[in-house]
């Protein structure tokens, strides 16, 4: 298992190097935004993977609440932590892009606001985990809060369609240059691999912590 993790991590890091080259060199600049648009090769994959990870945490929470198997609690904790890191990264990348494009680091736009709410909600749940010592209570309470907190995740994705937003709507794949689409999909795959690696490592740590709690 440990060797497998190392292989996945190494593939992810090598893929990231290739993805950076793809985003900066291989893919053409955008016709309107030029090189500025190259941030989408990390921003979009991070956004997708962040929402997928928080959805994994939500599904794991439901499975913990219904089945009471510890593996679902480990997965919830691991997916939520990595999902929050991706969410913070997403917000920072968005701000870096917003400054030259919108002339501001932050705008009170539905997409930006809902992402901030999503990240803060799950940071709160991680804090809840840190403040509860008894393992069953910690797992159950954080699972309950995750189920409630996840409601915002579909809204984050759909708000640009439902509401007037500065943030652009999802770009149809057919309108993109083939090189752009190739790099975007490749980087999404790489970010998914890297996050799978991080979640697996964090899962192992959560399982180890639980074993230690049982021993005490």
């Amino acid at each position, binding site marked *: 298992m440990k060797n497998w993790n190392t292989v996945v991590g190494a593939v992810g890091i090598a893929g990231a190097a290739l993805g950076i080259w793809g985003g900066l060199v291989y893919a053409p600049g955008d016709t309107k935004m030029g090189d500025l648009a190259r941030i989408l090769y990390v921003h979009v994959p991070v956004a997708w993977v962040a929402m997928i990870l928080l959805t994994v945490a939500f599904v794991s929470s439901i499975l913990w*609440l219904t089945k009471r198997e510890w593996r679902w609690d480990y997965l919830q904790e691991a997916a939520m932590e990595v999902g929050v890191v991706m969410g913070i990264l997403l917000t920072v990348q968005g701000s870096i892009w917003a400054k030259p494009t919108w002339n501001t680091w932050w705008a009170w736009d539905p997409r930006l606001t809902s992402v901030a709410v999503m990240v803060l909600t799950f940071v709160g749940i991680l804090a809840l985990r840190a403040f509860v010592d008894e393992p069953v209570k910690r797992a159950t309470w954080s699972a309950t809060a995750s189920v409630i907190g996840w409601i915002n995740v579909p809204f984050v994705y759909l708000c640009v369609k439902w509401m007037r937003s500065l943030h652009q709507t999802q770009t149809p794949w057919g309108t993109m240059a083939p090189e752009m689409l190739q790099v975007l999909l490749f980087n999404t795959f790489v970010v998914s691999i890297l996050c799978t690696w991080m979640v697996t490592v964090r899962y192992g740590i959560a399982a180890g912590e639980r074993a230690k709690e049982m021993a005490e």
Partner: protein
Amino acid sequence: MNSILAECAAVTRKELVHLWRARSRMVATGTFALATLLLFSFAGGLDEDALRRNAAGYLWLGLLLASTLALGESFRVETEHNAIEMLLLLPVRPAALFYGKAIGNLVVLVIVGLVMVPFTVVLFDAAPKESVLKLGASIFLGAAAIAAPGTMHAALAARARSRDVLLPLLLFPLVVPCVIASVQATQLCIGGDAMGQFGAWLTVVAAFCVVHWSLGGLLFDRVVED
């Protein structure tokens, strides 16, 4: 069905009796809310137009901050001397406990919200241009949208360490959508609703209420029984 309604009514009655006996608590919560209104007027400077424009926002932020005191207190009394264990021994379903508690908290928030209205009108020169009933409806639904997730998370935070920090940390991000919609609905009551947008904002708050009042009833047993 009748049985759960009867259980819910019994828990609500217990909550209201407790509220009445500890009414000084409600007075303290209301005073805190009014103090925040005063503080917001200092933060906004002396621009009277800006104060009037933001009056609904100040009202809702004051109520939200005060809600953490009221919600936290509603479960503090249950955790003292392990009263919650006794409560769980009663032949009452956890969902009825949740709804009873949430209705008790709703009553406190509505009273505090209604007390804040005349002060908001006087301090920010924000007399409502729309009917008072509309204003009342926006406060009632907004308070209900805070009360349900607030009750749920107060139950979680009450038995954790650093509960005073934890409750706002869990609650504030969650209620952002309902606060935005409530502020808009209240501001339309104050500033006038020329475009007829009040109903749409109130629908957003109502939808938020439906989701959180349903989820609370479904999940509360997991929170109190473990």
